């Protein structure tokens, strides 16, 4: 643990990952390809947790399991004390490739969750308005995803997940495909959104600056089979500065630790 005085109140965890492992049948069909092994950690209410690891180390696989989109081959995941057995609207997911519904307009994408759950018409409308406003896309209600830029699409992805008002948000490298400029902007936006609409966020990235800019806590993952190498509690004041000495020190510390594992 880097710092002793964390800003997270260690009450009941909202998500528990208990000894989770995941293997796939290897491509020749004979052996097993072990991607995750013995993952143990908890996530606390309103915490911004970053899972940080190199490319292809199994981050998406882990996040899918935590969200209930995939089942572990070993161990289990508990959300609010209940075992996770499938996808549920109490958990929201923001995808690496945005995965918007391309035949729906922006407002239909954002309103999808409330509508399929049969919330009252008025409530659906209100949520669309509120969350499009939150991500700064008011005025684009009638646009199709193909008419938007990459950054705007990912804003829609975030609004779509928020519109269900889930307890936990899962974000899988949401800014991975954006250019550096847009990426910085979106990181600041996300921080603002998270401070405005407090939620537990589990955020996956392979970018150390992004991790340090956003996280309350960083979990460093090793390469395949992936397990937890180290945890860091990040207590720097927000908004953070990329060239702050403390920022640079932590950056050095974590990347050094990471390089050893490659």
């Amino acid at each position, binding site marked *: 643990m880097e710092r002793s005085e964390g800003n997270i109140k260690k009450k009941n965890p909202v998500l528990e990952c208990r000894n989770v492992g995941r293997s796939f049948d290897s491509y020749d069909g004979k052996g097993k390809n072990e991607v995750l092994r013995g993952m143990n950690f908890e996530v606390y209410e309103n915490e911004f947790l970053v899972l940080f690891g190199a490319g292809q180390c199994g981050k998406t696989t882990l996040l899918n399991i935590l*969200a*209930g*989109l995939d089942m572990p081959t070993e161990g289990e995941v508990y959300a609010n004390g209940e075992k996770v057995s*499938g*996808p*549920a*609207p109490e*958990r*929201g*997911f923001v*995808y690496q*490739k*945005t*995965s*918007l*519904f*391309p*035949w*729906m307009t922006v407002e239909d994408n954002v309103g*999808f*969750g409330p509508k*399929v*759950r049969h919330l009252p018409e008025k409530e659906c409308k209100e949520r669309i308005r509120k969350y499009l406003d939150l991500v700064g896309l008011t005025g684009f209600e009638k646009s*199709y*995803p*193909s008419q938007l830029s990459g950054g705007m*699409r990912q804003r829609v992805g975030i609004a*779509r*997940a928020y519109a*269900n008002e889930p307890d936990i948000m899962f974000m899988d490298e949401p800014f991975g495909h954006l250019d550096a400029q847009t990426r910085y902007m979106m990181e600041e936006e996300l921080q603002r959104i998270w401070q405005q609409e407090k939620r537990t966020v589990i955020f996956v990235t392979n970018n150390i600056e992004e991790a340090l800019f956003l996280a309350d806590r960083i979990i460093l993952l090793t390469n395949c089979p992936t397990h937890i190498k180290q945890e860091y509690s990040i207590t720097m004041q927000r908004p953070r500065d990329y060239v702050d000495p403390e920022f640079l020190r932590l950056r050095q510390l974590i990347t050094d630790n990471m390089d050893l594992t490659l």
Partner: protein
Amino acid sequence: MIDSTTNSRFTNKQLIIIYTIISLVCLLIVWELVARFTSASMFLPPASEVLTAFFRSFAEPIGQHTMLFHVGISLYRVAVAFLFATVIGIALGVGMGYSRLFEAIFKPLFEFIRPIPPLAWIPLSILWFGLSDTGKFFIIFLGCFCFITVNTYDGAKNVDPELMGAARMLGANERQVFFKIVLPSSVPYIFAGLQIAVTAGWSAVVGAEMIQSNEGVGWVIIRGMSTGNTVQIMVGIVAIGIVGFILANLTSALERRLCAWNAQKGI
């Protein structure tokens, strides 16, 4: 590509139309010359004669009806068969693409029927349906239903699993995933199928009308053949070609409107 910067008097679209017209006119001139001045004139009536007969056929009846009626009755037959083919083809295709069980039951049967050319069914269809319109519907149906099924099946198989996961994550149940994700994301594939199918159905109408009929463009050709009237055969062919061309363009215009979201691929 036609470069619009080098010729600023016309837009790209206008240029394409101009070239199309030029190519058509050239075809007609070559046809006319070949028919008039070579030995092919024995079997090939000149373009001018065919075209005059074609335009005349809108006023003077061929058999008991004018051309508009023949085209109308053929279109009606295609429309009825096409409607059935669309409903059954989409249902079967989406069903096979979405449900493993459905696929296991219907795919072998479908793969068995698929390679049989529609005209091979004519004798059976006469046996089963006699000489009624039902037999013609049946042949046209077989001529277009496979295309719709195959394409729809393809579309339903290729639904991005992440989109289905996203829908479930947002709280959609299986029925909602099917109607709100699987079906709409298959729409571009379905339309590609409908486009091929409408043309295929229109071509099958000739075969279908070979089964004893007294009207329809297919009948115009068959009738021309049995009376040795080459001009009438060509008139029928021209009519089939023009209507086919219009149908293909109508469906692609419809597709552009309904699948506007699909204009840019790779989202």
